[in-house]
């Protein structure tokens, strides 16, 4: 296909010519499914939209023509801006609108009644649209769908939900063409499989990957600390880099770290350089202000998190700074792609390790980038909790036939091998609860009626189902507002769990300001600007990525070197010290270190299996300790080690690390542990067993609600084979439990280990001591603690003498 004259002219006025991969995408416009793999800055979005724009320019179209789906609300708004420019300049009459969680109610109603030509949205908003009774009318005549940053969606359940929604649209409009836009990934075939309308194939188009990035690690005069993720030491050096560049993006792995860094950056920002902060927990108005400032080129630096991780094309970004080890080479490469959006110019990036262990991780990651070695995990079968939600969404839109819905679902790559029995079990769960005890025959949620179709028993439940659409697991958050008239200025959100730890007068950071907690009013955290104390840090539930297998292996290899010319002296010295007082972990052996700290016995087990697997190891080993009477109190896991503390010291590590003993009773252990309960809660919400959004229930306080743990325990006791228990087990094994990496670790190490007992914290264990994410063990030690704490309270109150 050649470029029509108006487009040719428009390219010419810009001084551009069409990129080869843009032409390839144009040539493939009639394929049922096309996947473009291109680095950022390659005009990827335009490549995806060109066929739509040309078709709309040449053939008048009524209603929705192209749907664009991206993982981020911000991306939808950004694309709207970027598309509007060529459309306006070419004088095309194409209506472009976005629709996300941030779109107003009135605007959303208008869009349903009169859809634009191009609608920009997110997977959740799309799923919601398909749940309306008028979905067939909204999507009537739709021709194309563009899925941006599909590699990011493919990593989570959001991708599965999106593909199920696409299957629905494809049934409504069988001619629908699919376009996927992806950053560089290790396995394009996997994404092609995910996005295809089976059995139709997906055609893969590769763009030129561009030159190698210019990427270095920051060397500072100041020593990086032993532990922590703040990287405060790097601030003078970072400010210096910001001064030397037009616009710098400063990425952090978590929101809490971003807040703290931003706060410290401003304390040192003597020249008042315009530096802003952007992350998902900030108030929308505040985020939009930053986005606008970026577009206008008014900002010199933006401290951000994954919210800006994806292909947002703003302003003149010429430097990426990554604070903290990148954990995963693929993610690092994609982040680096943010800098220098001119095609064929190398991107510039600087890695800033937050502590000395991360120095080692950063050097390992640099080596991997140089060798263009990406990492990734194989994708698994479509999760059934998402499928259950999809069945409920379908029922909310219209009564359905089970046969037709099944046929539609197996046209999705991730569900193409779903058996009819598995589908029927999910349908039964949605209809009756799927319990061995058939208790709800009268109150079934879905009923098979005489017309052969499944109907909602009570049409009003559609409203409740819609309120629970989505697969992102938000922890319960509370809005934060400045105390004052008219409700006060909204600042953002914090986790309910964090809010519960605050008492009046406590201070915390949000949006870069220190605020003082004044109280809770109608589920809103009231704060004032009186900041006279060191802030506590607001905790946000950010996804914690496990260091990839590739990086872990590279680090173990580095430890075996005789010396470390690539490492800064401070880090090399630290490793030397560890080698002298203890040992460095090596391939094929566990390293175990035991030492007392803060009145408790601590044991660190270095397995280098990634955070999730180390966490599972922690659960398995604390269970063993419980059996051995060692009264474990809790543990924490990092990517390379598990640290356990308890009341009794570990003297015989062999009894703890016996793989046979650890595997024994694994099922029983798995059933009873906290990870399973957390996983169960997530799946129970996604599958529609319990509700996420019930503002009334939350406002009425906790009396009416009870914890999902009780549901889990009840099912475990009376209906252990229930569908949701199967799903929970499946999810836990591959997600939080990551059992495959435990098996890999035991295959690697067998039961070979070195146990070093010291009288204080070892150099290598130092970073572990300040890690967050401690998991308590609810065993015998819990009752011991409760009794001790109670006795102390009674004693202090004087009540102990009054009673008896």
């Amino acid at each position, binding site marked *: 296909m050649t470029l029509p004259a108006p487009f040719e002219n428009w390219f010419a006025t810009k001084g551009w010519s069409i990129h080869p991969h843009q032409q390839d995408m144009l040539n493939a416009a009639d394929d049922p499914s096309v996947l473009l793999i291109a680095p950022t800055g390659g005009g990827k979005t335009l490549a995806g939209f060109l066929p739509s724009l040309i078709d709309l320019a040449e053939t008048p179209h009524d209603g929705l023509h192209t749907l664009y789906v991206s993982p981020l609300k911000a991306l939808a708004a950004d694309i709207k801006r970027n598309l509007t420019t060529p459309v306006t300049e070419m004088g095309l009459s194409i209506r472009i609108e976005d629709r996300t969680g941030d779109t107003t109610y009135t605007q959303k109603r208008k869009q349903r009644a009169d859809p634009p030509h191009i609608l920009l949205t997110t997977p959740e908003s799309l799923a919601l649209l398909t749940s309306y009774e008028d979905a067939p009318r909204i999507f009537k005549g739709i021709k194309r769908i563009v899925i941006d940053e599909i590699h990011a969606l493919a990593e989570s359940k959001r991708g599965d939900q999106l593909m199920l929604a696409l299957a629905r649209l494809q049934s409504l409009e069988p001619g629908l063409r699919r376009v996927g836009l992806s950053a560089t990934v290790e396995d394009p075939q996997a994404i092609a499989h995910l996005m295809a309308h089976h059995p139709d194939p997906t055609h893969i188009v590769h763009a030129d990957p561009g030159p190698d990035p210019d990427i270095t690690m920051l060397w500072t005069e100041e020593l990086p600390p032993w532990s922590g993720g703040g990287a405060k030491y790097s601030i003078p050096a970072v400010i210096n880099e910001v001064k030397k560049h037009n616009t710098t993006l400063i990425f952090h792995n978590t929101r809490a770290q971003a807040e703290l860094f931003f706060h410290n950056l401003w304390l040192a920002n003597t020249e008042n350089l315009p530096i802003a902060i952007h992350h998902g927990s900030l108030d929308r108005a505040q985020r939009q202000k930053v986005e606008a400032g970026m577009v206008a080129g008014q900002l010199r630096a933006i401290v951000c998190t994954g919210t800006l991780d994806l292909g947002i094309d703003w302003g003149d970004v010429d430097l990426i700074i990554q604070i903290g080890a990148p954990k995963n080479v693929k993610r690092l490469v994609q982040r680096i792609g943010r800098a220098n959006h001119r095609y064929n110019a190398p991107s510039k990036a600087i890695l800033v390790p937050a502590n000395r262990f991360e120095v080692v991780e950063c050097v390992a990651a640099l080596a991997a980038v140089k060798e263009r070695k990406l990492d990734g995990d194989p994708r698994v079968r479509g999760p059934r909790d998402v499928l259950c939600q999809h069945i409920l969404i379908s029922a909310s839109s219209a009564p359905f036939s089970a046969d037709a819905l099944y046929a539609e679902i197996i046209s999705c790559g991730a569900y193409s091998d779903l058996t009819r029995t598995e589908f029927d079990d999910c349908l039964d769960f949605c209809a*009756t*609860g799927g*319990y061995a*005890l058939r*208790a*709800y025959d*009268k*109150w079934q*949620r879905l009923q098979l009626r005489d017309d052969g179709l499944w109907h909602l*028993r*009570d049409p009003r*439940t559609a409203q*409740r189902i819609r309120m629970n659409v989505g697969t992102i697991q938000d922890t319960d958050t509370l809005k934060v507002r400045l105390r004052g008239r008219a409700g006060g200025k909204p600042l953002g959100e914090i986790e309910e769990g964090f809010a519960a730890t605050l008492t009046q007068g406590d201070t915390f950071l949000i949006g870069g300001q220190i605020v003082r907690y004044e109280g809770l009013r109608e589920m809103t955290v009231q704060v004032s600007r009186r900041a006279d104390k060191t802030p506590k840090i607001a905790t946000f539930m950010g996804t914690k990525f496990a260091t990839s297998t590739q990086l872990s292996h590279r680090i173990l290899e580095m430890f075996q070197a005789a010396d470390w010319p690539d490492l800064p002296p401070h880090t090399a010295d630290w490793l030397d010290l560890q080698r002298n007082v203890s040992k460095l972990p090596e391939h094929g052996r566990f390293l175990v270190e035991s030492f007392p700290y803060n009145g408790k016995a601590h044991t660190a087990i270095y397995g280098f299996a990634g955070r999730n697997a180390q966490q599972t190891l922690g659960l398995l080993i604390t269970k063993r300790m419980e059996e051995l009477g060692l009264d474990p*109190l*809790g543990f924490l896991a990092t990517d390379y080690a598990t640290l356990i503390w308890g009341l009794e010291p570990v003297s015989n590590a062999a009894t703890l690390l016996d793989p046979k003993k650890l595997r024994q009773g694994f099922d029983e252990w798995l059933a009873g542990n906290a990870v399973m309960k957390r996983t169960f809660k997530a799946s129970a919400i996604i599958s*529609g*067993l*319990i*509700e996420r959004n019930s503002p009334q229930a939350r406002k009425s*306080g*906790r*009396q*009416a*609600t*009870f*914890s999902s743990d*009780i*549901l889990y325990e*009840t*099912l475990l*006791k*009376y*209906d252990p084979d*229930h569908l949701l228990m199967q799903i929970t087990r499946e999810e836990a094994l591959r997600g939080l439990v990551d059992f495959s990496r435990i098996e890999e670790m035991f295959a690697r190490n067998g039961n070979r280990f070195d146990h070093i007992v010291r009288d204080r914290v070892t150099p290598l264990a130092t970073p572990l001591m300040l890690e967050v994410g*401690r998991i*308590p063990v609810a065993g015998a030690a*819990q*009752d011991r*603690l*409760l*009794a*001790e*704490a*109670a006795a102390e*309270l*009674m004693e202090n*109150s004087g*009540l102990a003498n*009054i*009673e008896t």
Partner: protein
Amino acid sequence: MNKYSFSLMGANLVALPSGALWWPERGILCVSDMHLGKSDRIARRRGSMLPPYEVRDTLTRLEAAIVDTKPQTIVCLGDSFDDLNAQISLQDSEVQWITRLQAGRSWVWIEGNHDPGPIEFGGTHLAEFNEGPLRFCHIATPAGRGEISGHYHPKTSIKAKDRTISRPSFLVDDQRVIMPAFGTFTGGLRDSATPLQALMSETAIAVLTGTRTTVVPMQRH
């Protein structure tokens, strides 16, 4: 200290770890807020179908308490049923189970806000029940003396080293006892909540339930 013994207006009472209250001298076993049939009511009203096993779980625990104490009288302190449609909510086997538990002892159903009227089970149906110095009712009254009540589902949190442990609890002072909810599908109200703070005296204690009872001073504000 598996059980917690105390006296209220001269009556010697025992708070059991299960959340039931035992008065040995009169042979009275008291439980509150069982909310039987809750999962059925939620399915009927909201369309969510929770595991329908909470009735058998609550009755299993009630039966264990009965076997343990062999009471002459059972007092259910109200909200025994999640609503008045008990007969349609409960499975036949569960109805028979309750009838079997009632055999050979007297049974008092106190009205609650969820079950404000006669229920279709044998036994005595009362707004309140007076025995010796004690008055058994669903909701505590500010002026009440020797009052055993439920309704609020109190729970108490204790900070112990690195964690907070939260359990349903009895709130006890020299005038009254507020009982924890006995039902399996029941949430709790923190003892720091205003109505509980207003009802209980300065020297009130909380008796936490669990595998054993744990006694702490009630949190005051």
